[in-house]
């Protein structure tokens, strides 16, 4: 009953709010939405606590596994953990919105709850077509939330790009699901998986089905070259919505790839294509993140980088790497959520999130400053954060299977993204304010305030959610390694998912506990934090605010030898910016090329 309620309760509340919201006072709408999100958090927490000991499977409408057409909801520890993360982030986002939006309709709350329901449904479902429907519901609500302030030109443009790219991916996923049905006559993840495993290595059709299904999920997970929509959507979406996008929606793409691979295609197709696209995303996202001035866009590219690392962790296809990926996912969700809420506080106070306009203006917002400083350090993997545990465990597991390149990649991506956040902190909170006369003539386009009223001092409802998320990001690193390793073992075990869903039988593996507290782990974290601080210092704009603000390699350009490097860097930077053109045709072309690369790398034996 818990699993059905997790999905049904927010849908019901959303329907009621959408219908009756206009006659309800604002307080009642907020209370109803917060109460529902809190209830879902409790339900997912119960499912998470029970899942290692008792099978958490529900066949909808009593159509059990014997009938052949039943649709199961199943919560193994990772599914419940993912749903729980979504619920906690929704709770934080709604609490933040309470005072953040001075004028908002109940439709916003309804859509956020519907978004939560679709994310929980996607995490729990054990059926391919059902997963597609939840995936599409999640996407459609996300488009609507992105374009919520439809009076802004860039908002509707970003939402439209998001919508078209994401929908192409979703339809390719549906085509892949259709191919699985054509081969097996089954839509259940578990039943289709058993059928394919019995048939043996499948050849072209199975490879094609896997590539097509993965495409949609990888578009969601913003793997390069499917990532273009993400920064456009994050830069324009309302800030509380960004928390949900960056914290969990994008990660659900990674979850979708992992779940589909181990439940349906276990051992039938190679995952190297996912590793390649993920590694490309980690590198490109990290570099683009350093090049940004717009804080929300900077955080968006940092999400691309970190999710790229998650994809590589999944593609390593060992329980150890998956355990590390789970740590990283939970830690990243907390830290990135807190950082976005900090960006929201800046936007509320200063009407802009452009670092060039915010120089030295962070005084008077000490809590937000602390969030940015700590958030940057946690992104770099400062112990004992969840990201530290994730990096340590995944790097160990990747090295074990001979992926020597993973550790440098992870260190570089984390250091660059963390350096970008630390630079924001240094410029906004530690620099002297620019004299009013020499301030830039204002950004090309004034950031639209998401609220009419600038609050005199930030109320605790806007500060507490960020701090709680930051604390959660810290606490996830302290989760003992035993249960996480057992959950990863159960997730990746051959036939374990089918045993859980079809036979109601839990597998009880006795794996080596994942242990983040190792010497190489600490060494990696120390190097990453050090590099992050160096990158932040090196890219710090000059004190003179004359347009040199934020130029990459600013310090280098002063030396003659560095000037050539500076010019080359500027050329590359211009090229990278031009690549992210905002042109939907370009994005669709890149997507098509990405599918081709994915197919080639997967089909090669």
């Amino acid at each position: 009953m818990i699993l059905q309620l997790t999905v049904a309760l927010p849908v019901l509340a959303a329907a009621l709010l959408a219908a009756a919201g206009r006659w309800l006072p604002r307080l009642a709408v907020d209370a109803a939405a917060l109460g529902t999100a809190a209830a879902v958090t409790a339900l997912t927490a119960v499912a998470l606590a029970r899942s290692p000991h008792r099978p958490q499977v529900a066949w909808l409408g009593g159509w059990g596994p014997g009938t052949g057409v039943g649709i199961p909801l199943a919560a193994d520890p990772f599914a419940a953990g993912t749903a729980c993360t979504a619920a906690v982030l929704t709770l934080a986002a709604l609490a933040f919105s309470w005072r953040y939006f001075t004028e908002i309709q109940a439709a916003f709350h309804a859509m956020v709850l519907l978004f939560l329901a679709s994310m929980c449904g996607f995490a729990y479902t054990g059926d391919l077509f059902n997963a597609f429907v939840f995936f599409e519901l999640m996407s459609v609500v996300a488009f609507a939330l992105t374009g919520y302030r439809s009076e802004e030109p860039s908002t509707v443009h970003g939402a439209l790009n998001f919508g078209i790219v994401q929908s192409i991916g979703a339809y390719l996923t549906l085509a892949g699901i259709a191919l699985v049905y054509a081969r097996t006559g089954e839509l259940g993840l578990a039943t289709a998986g058993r059928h394919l495993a019995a048939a043996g290595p499948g050849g072209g059709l199975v490879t094609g089905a896997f590539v097509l299904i993965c495409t949609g999920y990888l578009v969601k997970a913003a793997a390069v070259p499917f990532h273009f929509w993400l920064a456009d959507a994050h830069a324009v979406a309302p800030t509380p919505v960004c928390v949900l996008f960056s914290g969990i929606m994008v990660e659900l793409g990674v979850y979708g790839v992992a779940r589909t691979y181990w439940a349906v295609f276990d051992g039938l197709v190679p995952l190297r294509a996912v590793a390649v696209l993920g590694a490309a995303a980690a590198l490109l996202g990290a570099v683009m993140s350093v090049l940004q001035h717009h804080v929300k866009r900077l955080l968006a590219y940092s999400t691309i980088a970190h999710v790229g690392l998650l994809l590589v962790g999944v593609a390593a296809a060992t329980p150890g790497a998956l355990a590390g990926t789970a740590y990283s996912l939970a830690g990243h969700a907390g830290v990135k959520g807190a950082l976005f809420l900090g960006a929201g506080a800046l936007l509320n106070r200063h009407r802009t999130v452009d670092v060039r306009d915010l120089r030295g203006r962070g005084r008077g917002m000490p809590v937000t400053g602390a969030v940015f400083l700590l958030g940057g350090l946690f992104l770099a993997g400062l112990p004992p954060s969840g990201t530290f545990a994730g990096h340590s465990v995944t790097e160990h597991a990747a090295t074990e299977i001979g992926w020597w390149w993973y550790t440098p990649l992870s260190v570089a991506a984390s250091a660059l993204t963390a350096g970008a956040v630390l630079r924001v902190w240094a410029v906004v909170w530690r620099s002297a304010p620019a004299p009013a006369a020499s301030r830039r003539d204002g950004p090309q386009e004034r950031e639209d305030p998401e609220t009419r009223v600038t609050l005199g001092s930030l109320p605790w409802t806007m500060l507490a959610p960020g701090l709680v998320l930051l604390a959660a990001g810290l606490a996830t690193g302290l989760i003992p390694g035993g249960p996480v390793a057992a959950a990863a073992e159960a997730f990746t075990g051959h036939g374990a998912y089918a045993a859980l869903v079809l036979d109601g039988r839990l597998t009880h593996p006795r794996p080596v506990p994942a242990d983040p507290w190792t010497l190489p782990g600490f060494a990696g974290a120390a190097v990453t934090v050090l590099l992050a601080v160096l990158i932040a210092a090196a890219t710090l704009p000059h004190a003179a605010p004359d347009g040199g603000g934020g130029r990459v390699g600013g310090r280098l350009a002063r030396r003659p030898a560095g000037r050539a490097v500076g010019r080359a860097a500027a050329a590359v930077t211009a090229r990278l910016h031009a690549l992210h053109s905002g042109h939907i045709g370009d994005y669709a072309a890149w997507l098509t090329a990405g599918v081709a690369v994915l197919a080639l790398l997967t089909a090669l034996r």
Partner: protein
Amino acid sequence: MNLPHLLPYLAAGWIMLVGLYGIVTSRDLVHAVVCLQVTQSGTYVLLLAIGYRSGATAPVFSDRPPPPAGGPVTDPVVQAMALTDVVVGATVTALLLALAVQVAKRRGTLDPADLRSLES
């Protein structure tokens, strides 16, 4: 599999590619959204082709007994999926067209090439 059996699958792939080509070369956002709908139509054809059985009738049992007594019927599961797919497609198209209308209102153009990059 011989050509007549393969034809619906080739047609489905062709329709999806045509839609994608339309989006890539589109000079108008409304046109791009319609091309997206064309891409999706490929999935309808694919789904129905998968469930088709030659000589079978529609899976409606109001006037005759279910198989095996009543003779073969086409697969109702894919038809249910196609129906759901149509509903999903209608939602997506309506929302994207609404966004395209807003773009036209705010930017005064529907040509993606005239829209400024969002990269600051």
